[in-house]
C-alpha cells in the first residue's frame, strides 16, 4: 500500500524541516509503482509525478504532520484536484437529451436505465431509446429494465438512426421530457460504427454525450477516451463496475488526457447503483 511504503521510506529519515530532493525522488519511485499498478497510463503517470515532484521539493513540512504524511497529503490533494476540480454534474432535473456511447460490454444499457431511474425519482418522464440493432436481445434487455422502473422504451426501427428518428417523434407525442439513447458497443477504431455514432449525435444534438468506461480498463483508456473525444466529442464519462476491486486508474488517465469530467460511477448491477463521482474517494482508491 502506497502510504505504508512512503511511511517506511521516511521512518529512515529523522525529523526534517523541508522535503529534500532525495526525499521526494524516493517517494516518487513508490508513487510511480502505485499508479501503474492502479492502471494509470504510463505517460499520464510520468506527467503526474512530474507535477508532484515540482510541488513537493522544498516544501515546509506542516507541524501537524511528519514528512511522509505531508508527501502523501500533497499527492492526494493533487490527485483530487486533477480528478475533480469543479465537476459540472449531469443535471438530472433538467437535462433533455443524453447519448450513451462506449466499447462493448462496458455497461451502457444498464447505465442508461440507471439514469432514467434517477429521473423517475425526480418525477420526470424520461424515454429510453434502444438504438442498438446489432447485439442479440439488446432491445429486449432495455425493455425489461425500462419495465422494472415504469419508463417507456422505444425500439422500433431497423437501423440505429431509424430508431432515433422514430423516438424523437414518440417523445414529442408522449410528452417525454428527456430522451436517453442507448447505442451499440463499438470499437473506437471501427470506422463504420464511429460514422454511425457521428450521425446519431448530429441528429440528436444531445445535451450530454457520455462515454461509458469499464472501471478495470487498463493502459488503453487513454487511446479509447481520446479517440472518442476527438472523433465524436463527449461531455463527460461514467466509470462502471467500481463495486469490484479495480483501482480505477483509468479515471486519472482519462481526466488528464481529455480534460472531460467523470460524472458518475456505476457501483453494481442494480438500477439504483449509480453514484455521483467523488474525486477524494477515487484518489484514495487509486493510491491503494
Amino acid at each position, binding site marked *: 500500500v502506497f502510504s505504508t511504503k512512503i511511511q517506511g521510506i521516511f521512518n529512515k529519515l529523522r525529523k526534517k524541516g523541508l522535503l529534500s530532493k532525495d526525499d521526494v525522488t524516493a517517494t516518487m519511485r513508490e508513487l510511480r509503482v502505485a499508479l501503474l*499498478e492502479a*492502471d494509470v497510463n*504510463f505517460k499520464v503517470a510520468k506527467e503526474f509525478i512530474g507535477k508532484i515532484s515540482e510541488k513537493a521539493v522544498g516544501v515546509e513540512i506542516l507541524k501537524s504532520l511528519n514528512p511522509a504524511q505531508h508527501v502523501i497529503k500533497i499527492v492526494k490533494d493533487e490527485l483530487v484536484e486533477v480528478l475533480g476540480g469543479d465537476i459540472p454534474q449531469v443535471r438530472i432535473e433538467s437535462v433533455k437529451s443524453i447519448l450513451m456511447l462506449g466499447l462493448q*460490454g462496458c455497461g451502457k444499457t444498464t447505465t442508461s436505465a440507471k439514469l432514467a431511474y434517477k429521473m423517475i425519482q425526480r418525477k420526470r418522464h424520461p424515454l429510453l431509446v434502444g438504438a442498438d440493432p446489432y447485439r*442479440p436481445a439488446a432491445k429486449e*434487455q432495455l425493455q425489461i429494465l425500462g419495465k422494472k422502473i415504469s419508463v417507456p422504451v422505444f425500439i422500433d426501427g431497423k437501423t440505429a438512426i431509424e430508431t432515433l428518428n422514430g423516438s424523437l417523434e414518440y417523445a414529442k407525442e408522449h410528452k417525454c421530457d428527456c430522451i436517453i439513447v442507448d447505442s451499440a458497443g463499438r470499437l473506437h477504431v471501427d470506422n463504420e460504427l464511429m460514422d454511425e455514432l457521428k450521425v446519431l449525435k448530429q441528429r440528436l444534438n444531445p445535451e450530454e454525450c457520455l462515454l461509458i468506461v469499464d472501471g478495470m480498463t487498463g*493502459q*488503453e483508456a487513454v487511446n479509447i477516451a481520446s479517440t472518442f473525444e476527438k472523433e465524436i466529442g463527449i461531455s463527460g464519462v461514467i466509470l462502471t*463496475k467500481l*463495486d469490484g476491486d479495480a483501482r480505477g486508474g483509468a479515471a486519472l488517465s482519462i481526466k488528464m488526457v481529455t480534460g472531460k469530467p467523470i460524472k458518475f460511477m456505476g457501483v453494481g448491477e442494480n438500477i439504483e447503483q449509480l453514484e455521483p463521482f467523488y474525486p477524494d474517494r477515487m484518489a484514495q482508491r487509486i493510491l491503494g
Partner: protein
Amino acid sequence: FFKFFAKDESVWDEVEEAFINTDVGIETALRIIDELRNSSIKPEGLRIALKEKISSILGTQGFCLNFPSNMPAIFLFIGVNGSGKTTTIGKLAFKLKNEGKSVLIAAADTYRAAAIPQLEEWARRCGVEILKQQEGADPGAVAYDALDAAIARNIDVVLIDTAGRLHTKHHLVREMKKIREICEKKIPGAPHEILLVLDAVSGQNGLIQAQNFLESVGISGIVLTKLDGTAKGGIIISIADKLKLPVKLIGVGEGLEDIGEFNPVEFVEALFE
C-alpha cells in the same frame, strides 16, 4: 511499439514502457528486464531475446481444450460482467459443430435481463440446441439438467453460460462453487474446462480476477476476448508467469466466426507490431 533506438542504458526504459503499454504490469515487466540485463544481451539481440523470454513464459503446452474420451466434455464459462462469455459460447458452439461435434448450450445465467434470449439467438444462429429454464431458476439446476441431457443423448460437448460476476462478491463466488460441484457429482472429472473469459482491455485487475477465481473455483484456462480492439492483452503474460494459466481461445470480433485457438507465436508477434 518496441522500436529500440537507444543503444545504451536508456533502452531498458523503452522496454519497460513498451511492456507497461500492453498491460503486462510493472512487477512482471521489471522482473523480465532484470533477467535480461543480467544476461549479456547486446542491443541488436534484444528484440529476439524479449520474444524468447515472453514465449518461454507463455509456455508450449496446455493451449488445447480438454476433451475427455467416452463422456460429454463439460466446459464452464465464468468471468466478470460484460467480458464476452455469452458471445464466446455462441462462437465456440459454431466452431465445434463445424468440427463434427454435437453441442448443447446450457443457459445458466438465469439472472441478467434478457440473458436467456441473447443466448437463444446465438444457439439459433449456429443451429445448436439450448437447454434453459425460466429466468430466476437455480443456475445449478440448469447445469444439472444439461449434463443429464448430454449423457442421455450422447452429446459431445456442453457449454455452460453463467452470469457475470465480480470475484469480490462472495455469494456469487459461492454460487459458482456450487455449480462446479454439481457438475463434478454428475460426471466425474467435470467440468473438464473452467474457462475464465477476460476482456483484452483489462488492466491489472485481470490478474487479480484470475488469482481469485483460481483459488475459489479453479480455472483451467483463459479466453481472451476483444483482441480486435487496440488492447494487446499483455495481462495474460503476467497471468502465465504468476499462475501458469494458459490462454485457450481468443475472441476477435462480434461475429459467429470471430474465434480462434490461442497461438502463442502469433500473440508474441502481435505484441511487437
